[in-house]
């Protein structure tokens, strides 16, 4: 019996259409728009101005708070302007727009393909390098990676868990990265282990990627302390709390972080970025993005410079299909629907999913028939039907008692509901209200 998390979960159609498409490098676009807010936390502060010449990998914005991140130019060229434009959030936010000229990299960056396994840097140096390379969680949450690597005083980490689950349907970028950059990931994991001063790491991979599991097991035998854990396919196993539960049977308490149970979780893509940052001095300027969808001509996995417009990726996948109703940044379960295809790729973009009308349209909402399916699929053990009602009726104190803030917004409830009720929509509304109330209390 393969391991999985203990509560709830669903198994949507996997639709991993691009699983066999090797990573292709997308040509550098003519202009890039690099948002200064690509991570959770405070937006970065631009340190370049209009007309400045920049190289690939040059720092262009620095953090403006504790939870914030460095941002580097993904192309060489001239800063055209710093302007407000719509990003994946749907809001207008500040971005640095660079006109590309040539492809001139910072000299310090090692662009050779040689694998460097020796890790001379000390833990402190590693964490500093990761921070200065602007690395954030590449699984989609975009939490600055170096913060997780520095546990607060009194908290101890004894295990590193690497997320190779990719539980979102359609997405295959992590899958391809494991197949094609396995060695780099292994060294990246070793670097993270050194930074955290732990001797054990588990890489959790869902069983729908047998080739990746096999490949990673072969590689892991060459490195000490790394174990590959094949997991039963179950959404949302890629959720941090679910993955820890699945791999080591520890449950992070309500409102707490993984470090509470001695674990730190990083994505495989993040491990690759860490390898490049520490061993090759290459900051986070590009990532692998899956471009997919049922009507897409050529579902593919592309290595893309950050700031490239989504439309360029769709072009590379054979253009926008006629029946496209929704463009989703991310997977179908937790991704965000984009309002235009001009939005730039950012650090958190794991996929672009084009959805035809017949899948993308919601069905009419019916009465709750109390079938309790939402309760049985909730991976956090909540009662989504009740949370929705409480949010609808604005009964915030009871919503808080019913642990609305524990919701990880995986969408399993809305996915399952036979009455097509917008459970998660209302729970999100409730979470933002209850969150406001809770914050105002501590002030």
């Amino acid at each position, binding site marked *: 019996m393969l391991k999985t998390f203990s509560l709830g979960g669903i198994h949507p159609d996997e639709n991993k259409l691009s699983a066999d498409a090797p990573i292709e490098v997308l040509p550098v676009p003519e202009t890039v728009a690099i948002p200064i807010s690509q991570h959770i936390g405070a937006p970065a502060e631009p340190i370049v101005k209009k007309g400045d010449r920049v190289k690939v990998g040059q720092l262009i914005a620095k953090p403006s708070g504790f939870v914030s991140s460095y941002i580097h130019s993904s192309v060489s060229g001239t800063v055209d302007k710093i302007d407000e434009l719509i990003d994946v959030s749907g809001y207008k936010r500040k971005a640095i727009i660079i006109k590309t000229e040539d492809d001139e990299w910072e000299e310090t960056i090692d662009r050779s393909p040689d694998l460097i396994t020796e890790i001379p840097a000390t833990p402190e140096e590693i964490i500093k390098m990761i921070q200065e390379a602007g690395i954030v969680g590449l699984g989609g949450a975009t939490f600055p990676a170096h913060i997780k690597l520095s546990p607060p005083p009194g908290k101890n980490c004894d295990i590193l868990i690497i997320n190779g689950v990719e539980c979102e349907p359609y997405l295959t970028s992590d899958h391809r990265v494991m197949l094609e950059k396995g060695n780099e990931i292994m060294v990246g994991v070793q670097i993270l282990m050194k930074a955290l001063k732990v001797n054990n790491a588990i890489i959790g991979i869902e069983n729908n990627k047998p080739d990746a599991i096999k490949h990673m097991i072969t590689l892991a035998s060459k490195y000490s302390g790394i174990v590959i854990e094949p997991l039963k396919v179950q959404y949302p196993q890629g959720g941090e709390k679910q993955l820890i*539960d699945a791999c080591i049977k520890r*449950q992070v*308490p309500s409102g707490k972080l993984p470090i509470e149970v001695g674990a730190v979780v990083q994505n495989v893509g993040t491990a690759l970025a860490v390898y490049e940052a520490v061993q090759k001095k290459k900051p986070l300027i590009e990532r692998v993005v899956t471009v997919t969808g049922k009507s897409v001509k050529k579902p593919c996995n592309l290595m893309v410079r950050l700031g490239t417009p989504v439309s360029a990726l769709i072009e590379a996948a054979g253009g926008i299909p006629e029946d496209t109703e929704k463009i989703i940044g991310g997977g179908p379960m937790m991704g965000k629907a984009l309002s235009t295809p001009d939005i730039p790729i950012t650090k958190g973009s794991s996929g672009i999913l084009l959805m035809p009308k017949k899948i993308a349209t919601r069905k009419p909402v019916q009465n709750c028939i*109390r079938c309790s399916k939402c309760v049985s699929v909730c991976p956090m*053990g909540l009662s989504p039907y009740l949370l929705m009602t409480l949010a609808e009726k604005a009964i915030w104190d009871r919503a808080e008692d019913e642990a609305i803030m524990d919701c990880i917004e995986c*969408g399993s409830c809305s996915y399952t509901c*036979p*009455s097509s009720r917008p459970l998660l929509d209302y729970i999100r509304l409730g979470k933002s209200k209850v969150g406001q109330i809770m914050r105002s209390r501590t002030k």
Partner: protein
Amino acid sequence: MNKLTVSPSPHVHSGDSVKKNMYGVLIALLPALFTSLYYFGIGALIVTITSIVSCVLFEYLIQKYLLKKDPSVTDGSAILTGLLLAFNLPSNAPIAIIIIGALVAMGIGKMAFGGLGNNPFNPALVGRVFLLISFPVQMTSWPTPIASRLAYTDAVTGATPLGVIKEGLAKGDIMSDLLTKIPSFSDMFYGNMGGSAGEIAAIALLIGFIYLLMKRIITWHIPVSVIGTIFIFTGILHLANPNIYISPVFHILTGGVMLGAIFMATDYVTSPMSRKGMIVFGVGIGVITVAIRVFGAYPEGLSFAILIMNGFVPLIDKYIKPKRFGELIKPAKA
């Protein structure tokens, strides 16, 4: 390109629907329908058709003319209520009575509360119990199986096994004599006994149960806890004094326990939301059923038991919550 749709995640849906669940339960009831037609023939056919047609019609009329909403009869819930009501009636029930039952079930049991999803009590049982109290004679005359295939209201009738035992014991008859007057357990299992149209054949209902479990329409919790409780409770009584208390196998095969436990108590709308709550609910139904059967005035108590426990569902849901993440395993300190 068209204008893009922007809506929050999730962007896909399982494809499950109210309709699928309702028709799933209807399919699960087909074996029981066939046995009912086999044993009660034309009477069962008339009762079933009358009940379904009147339930669907009443729902349609009430939604259209009273509530002025779009009728939703195609979702299958009215057909289901109609079929379950029919299964709870003797196969010689007069048409007028069935129509009254259907009106009470749909009008008072369901639509008065706002339709599907809002009714606190199982509509089919509301209809059935209303009829049982209002027309006790017609509701407790049971056509004999097979012999009355070609008869309707003129069918030869007899008592149900539960009735035989209850009356016999009340008159002071000896248990061993009474046992000779009821069908064998295997006859009961296959449905060859007097009773409501759809409740008789345990085997057919169990096949339906397996289908419901396979289709994940219901979980095992309610049926198993109802049947288990009745079996254990009557088993203890039987062991204590077999001369007064009949075997637990008899209890679970008669009086619609299978029908009630598998198809009526599991009604989504009127049962609890958490697994633990479902078990409490099921045990409650079992205990009340046995209490009515053994110590009460009626020979059969499952309908009352389910309705009583329906009333407790809001309370059960309030105090019995699913286990939350983080409560299952205590954090191991690193």
